[in-house]
């Protein structure tokens, strides 16, 4: 069936999550005609799962972060039989920020220079200080709670909002870090400690940020960037699944073909196309967009589209305390972190480092079922054991540098299709020795600090499989077209009017949560496109 064609726009963005929203705002702010295609839909925060009596059950159903388990029509299945990590993501306006822990650390200056400093992977083609103004702008747009002065990171501007309350567990752990002489600091988080913006309230410490936020205190991009972008005149087409990026006779991107939920095929013409579909979705779309000019996938002359998948492999150490920490109070991942072991230390026998980050506790069902701890056994002692654990836990995630390896990659699985019949991605991923050693070292340090804090019992999981939230590296950034997919501005080497703004472009991933860096890069790319507007007009 012939596609229904639509008038060209200046910029077409694929994906309405963290990066697509940021780019849409900046571009529309500059007066460009922006349209975003998103396969999911809007979320009604007033009807969030966190406001339902069975909220803990829903966490394992339609709000499960694992699309293969969730199986919503807007999701695409992922073949993950060749990886120990479960890929996690969410499709909708806001993308995975609808489902996140809201942690907002930044990469360190050293993360951009790992080849120079440590002889591994590659340096980024930009440095921390080039990105810093965009980090700051993004912090203001998202509304970040925190406090400046962290000695583990370069100085940053006063945070837009004061820190979120730590609660008993983090206060206990902070004192233990102090006694050990180890770094700790309140995490910058995208959760309002006070009302922020026109209609976003303050956090009321309910706990499950991953289940939606009727207060609009949690900064998903559907409540931060999108209202501003739409106010600027940007347009957002939901329930639009992009099939391929199309090309003109000169080999430039001409737009995208997409299908709606009724099965109609559309073609949206555009002068510039931006991919913002995360490190799996963007690679998938590029690999699906084959042509005579690009038989191995669009923008893939380097052969690196899909390669170098990075996740941040994560371990977890949990302390169970005798006294009540009321650990179910407060945003589950907004707490404190330690970057004492962030940098390379030759005495450890590893390169690069790790971050320890505290998370709060579960509700009764999560505690009983053992989301992150062994299940509470059934039987006569069940109730007593539940009360001995509920609210009495604190956990530290061990997030490690995850150095890129070409064999860790996204490919297409033609035998697995989504609800529209499109081939789905397959992930191939192995944990390398360095990462495994970092996980072990971090777990031991976690045990040490819990012991110092007086935990009655310490449970260690060196690897937590269900933590593949971070999907990075599959359209690597670099100056050399032979060894990278996009340039320092996210512009495809092979297709000059095609940009990538999601985590695909990461050269390395550091040991911190990536969203603030993803969005800062997206703002920088958008700025670059705005500055190149004359060229855009010439192209038109």
């Amino acid at each position, binding site marked *: 069936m012939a596609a229904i064609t639509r008038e060209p726009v200046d910029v077409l963005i694929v994906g309405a999550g963290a990066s697509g929203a940021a780019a849409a705002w900046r571009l529309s702010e500059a007066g460009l005609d922006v349209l975003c295609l998103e396969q999911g839909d809007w979320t009604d925060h007033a009807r969030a799962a966190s406001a339902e009596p069975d909220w803990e059950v829903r966490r394992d159903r339609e709000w499960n972060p694992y699309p293969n388990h969730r199986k919503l029509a807007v999701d695409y299945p992922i073949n993950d039989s060749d990886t120990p990590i479960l890929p996690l993501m969410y499709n909708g306006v806001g993308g995975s920020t609808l489902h996140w822990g809201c942690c907002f650390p930044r990469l360190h200056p050293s993360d951009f220079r790992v080849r120079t400093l440590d002889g591994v992977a590659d340096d980024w083609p930009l440095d921390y200080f080039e990105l810093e103004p965009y980090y700051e702008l993004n912090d203001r747009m998202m509304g970040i709670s925190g406090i400046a002065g962290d000695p583990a990171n370069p100085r940053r501007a006063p945070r837009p909002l004061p820190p979120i309350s730590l609660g008993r567990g983090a206060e206990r752990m902070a004192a233990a870090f102090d006694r050990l002489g180890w770094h700790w600091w309140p995490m910058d988080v995208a959760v309002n400690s006070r009302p922020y913006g026109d209609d976003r309230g303050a956090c009321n410490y309910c706990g499950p940020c991953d289940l939606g936020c009727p207060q609009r205190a949690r900064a998903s991009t559907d409540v931060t960037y999108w209202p501003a972008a739409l106010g600027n005149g940007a347009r957002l087409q939901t329930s639009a699944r992009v099939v391929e990026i199309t090309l003109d006779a000169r080999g430039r991107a001409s737009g995208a073909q997409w299908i709606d939920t009724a099965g109609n095929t559309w073609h949206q013409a555009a002068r510039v196309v931006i991919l913002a579909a995360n490190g799996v979705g963007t690679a998938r779309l590029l690999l699906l967009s084959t042509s005579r000019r690009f038989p191995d996938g669009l923008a893939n002359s380097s052969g690196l589209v899909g390669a170098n998948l990075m996740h941040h492999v994560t371990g977890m150490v949990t302390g169970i305390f005798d006294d009540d920490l009321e650990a179910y109070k407060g945003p589950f991942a907004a707490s404190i972190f330690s970057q004492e072991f962030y940098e390379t230390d030759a005495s450890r026998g590893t390169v690069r480092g790790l971050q320890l980050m505290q998370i709060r506790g579960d509700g009764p069902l999560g505690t009983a079922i053992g989301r992150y701890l062994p299940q509470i056994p*059934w039987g006569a002692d069940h109730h007593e054991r539940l009360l001995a654990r509920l609210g009495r836990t604190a956990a530290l995630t061990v997030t490690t540098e995850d150095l890129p390896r070409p064999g860790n990659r996204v490919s297409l699985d033609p035998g697995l299709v989504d609800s529209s019949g499109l081939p789905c991605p397959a992930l191939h991923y192995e944990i390398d020795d360095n990462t495994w050693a970092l996980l072990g070292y971090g777990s031991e340090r976690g045990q040490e600090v819990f012991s110092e804090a007086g935990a009655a019992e310490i449970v260690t999981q060196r690897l937590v499989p269900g933590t593949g939230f971070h999907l990075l590296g599959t359209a690597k950034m670099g100056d050399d077209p032979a060894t990278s997919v996009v340039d320092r501005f996210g512009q495809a080497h092979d297709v000059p009017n095609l940009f990538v703004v999601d985590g695909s472009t990461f050269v390395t991933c550091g040991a911190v949560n990536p969203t603030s860096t993803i969005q800062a890069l997206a703002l920088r790319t958008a700025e670059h496109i705005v500055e190149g507007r004359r060229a855009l007009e010439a192209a038109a």
Partner: protein
Amino acid sequence: MRRRELLDVVLDRLLPPVDELGGAGALGLAASLDRDPLADAAPGALDEVLAALPKDFLDRDGEDQDRSLQQIETQQAEAFSILISVAYNAYYVDPRVLERIEGRTAYKAGPPQPRGYEIEPFDETLLAQISRREPFWRKVDP
């Protein structure tokens, strides 16, 4: 009839009475087990557990019943784990159960929103020691 009776007794052994609260079977939670999507996804799992129970299960005393269940937990681990998951799912969304927990802890029964919790505000004096530390991030040549 027998299936429901069996399920009630099994649930009472898994999640027994406590304080003034009846066991999960006595609370009438058996009916909701089959409606759990987990049970849907593993059709027959609950019946597999029930079929593995000794014929005189209902006539045995509690400790004997527990031993039978422990044996099934070992020998038919997958089906039994489905039973545990759906039983816990049903039990821990029941308002009577959550109210009991609320009576023993600071946990609030009912959904987290819109009530939320009160927490002491951030105490900046906690930073007294770490704030004195000199910046130690690794410097990089431009």
